[in-house]
């Protein structure tokens, strides 16, 4: 099958949260219970077991005289020297997915669409994928014990439909399709933004040579990834696993020698 994915173009995100709502409704996700965070318009806070699409609101204060008119993207509120960025974050569906590699039960698997999904009838709530994910996407549902995350609407894909968030997005900030096609479209969009003077616009996760082998759900950002609370150079933890296993092997051998020395090396 062709690899399917998301291209989230944050330059046209208006922060409406239709994606969050559509995702919750279609996937029947319980409420996110962060209460009132006081963090801009963001009360879902982060991705987690009950938030599979999360619209981040980034308020950046910048002095008013340093805000020239030509930055005029719709998402910028320039009058009082405030720049307001919105971005709908989601599971990256990594090419080399740490969550999937560390999962001991096989609950996490790669679908025929090259997406990464948790099988809810297999997950035993061991929690290993939670700190393994370099983006903090997965989390455990406390009352349920299992981990949950974006399935890229696996059920809808099997019926030839697009994911609920992409269908609900009114500005096409969330685009669903064949990953290769999305890469081309994103490249064109980036060129347009650069030509319009948005020099700090960049693609995030389109590079198949990055530390996770590229994302199945990649982004166009208007600033450094850190600004959106995203890691600048994520790396699949299992890339370092061979050397870690070697260290453990050496440590085990050292323990064996230490035990032998204790038993045979002294007076009884």
């Amino acid at each position, binding site marked *: 099958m062709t690899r399917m994915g998301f291209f989230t173009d944050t330059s046209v995100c208006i922060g409406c949260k239709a994606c969050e709502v559509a995702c919750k409704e279609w996937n029947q996700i319980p409420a996110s219970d962060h209460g009132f965070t006081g963090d801009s318009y963001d009360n879902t806070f982060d991705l987690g077991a009950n938030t599979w699409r999360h619209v981040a609101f980034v308020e950046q204060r910048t002095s008013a005289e340093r805000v020239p008119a030509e930055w005029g993207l719709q998402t910028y509120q320039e009058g009082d020297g405030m720049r307001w960025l919105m971005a709908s974050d989601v599971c990256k569906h990594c090419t080399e997915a740490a969550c999937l590699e560390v999962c001991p039960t*096989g609950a996490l698997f790669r679908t025929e669409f090259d997406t990464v999904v948790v099988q809810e009838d*297999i997950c035993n709530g061991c929690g290993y994928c939670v*700190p393994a*994910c370099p983006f903090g996407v997965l989390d455990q549902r406390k009352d349920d014990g299992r981990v949950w995350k974006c399935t890229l609407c696996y059920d809808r894909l099997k019926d030839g439909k697009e994911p609920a968030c992409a269908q609900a997005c009114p500005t096409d900030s969330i685009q669903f399709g064949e990953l290769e096609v999305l890469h081309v479209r994103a490249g064109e969009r980036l060129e347009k933004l650069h030509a319009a003077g948005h020099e700090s616009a960049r693609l995030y996760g389109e590079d198949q040579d990055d530390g996770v082998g590229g994302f199945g759900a990649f982004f166009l950002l208007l600033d450094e990834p850190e600004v959106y609370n995203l890691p600048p150079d994520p790396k699949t933890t299992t890339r*370092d696993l061979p050397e870690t296993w070697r260290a453990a092997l050496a440590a085990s051998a050292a323990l064996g020698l*230490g035990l032998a020395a204790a038993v045979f090396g002294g007076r009884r």
Partner: protein
Amino acid sequence: MSARPATQTAPSKPVIKEPVWTWEIPFYFYAGGLAGAAAGLSRLAEASGNDVLARRASGVALAGAVASPALLVSDLGKPSRFLHMLRLFKVTSPMSVGSWVLAAFGSATGLGWLDHATGGRVPAGRAARTAAGVLGLPLASYTAVLVANTAVPAWHESRRILPFVFVSGAAASAGAALTAVTPAPYAGPARRLAVAGAIVEVALSARMESGLGELSDAYATGDAHRLGTAAKALLVGGAAVGLGAARSRGAAAAAGALITAGAVLARWSVFRAGFTSAADPRHTVAPQRARLSS
């Protein structure tokens, strides 16, 4: 075209999730290490003709092998699905590898102990004890691989030394328990193991913490710092008392208790440091930025 506005560069919220593992896990790190090293000690003591120590060590290994799965199952979000751990064998998942090692170790330790207890009526009892002794070695180290194989910076960046910290802690744990429960004339190997394990663990922990560079504040602040400081004091104190354990029952019991407490707190210190590190977005981002600019 104009200069872009000054932007915040440090994320304001954690980038990765803190582990969801609960109190059972650091105690399991202790129990697994204790059992693994005790099984190896038991088999070697048997080979050296020290049957008293061999039998006590076999009992300690069995106790650890019984406590370990109980702790692990209790930590699961869906304890009723604990058998799903053995659906696959996956080398990219240290938890999967460890589950198989623990299952095999537990079976071998149980058979080996039963053979001892029934006066040699279990077929291949000695072979089972050999298997337990060998399997105990990876059982003591794989837990370090498990935590290092995450996105948690303080754990991941100490991946080359952490297995050595854990096996020295395992040696100290087994040595301490057996120093306390073995009659002094037979406890020589246990005393040596306890004292050497405790000293090596203190030295390696200090080296691991300083080797973390800008991430070392995970161990220099908060819970991990308090636990780590107490662990080192207990281990050093226990080792000092342990030097006199051959001559005094009281000293043997005290050394065993001090080093056991130190080994438990040392596991807790590493465990808590991971939470501190995961919660700090600078820990996640700074090494990545350094990688990009190098």
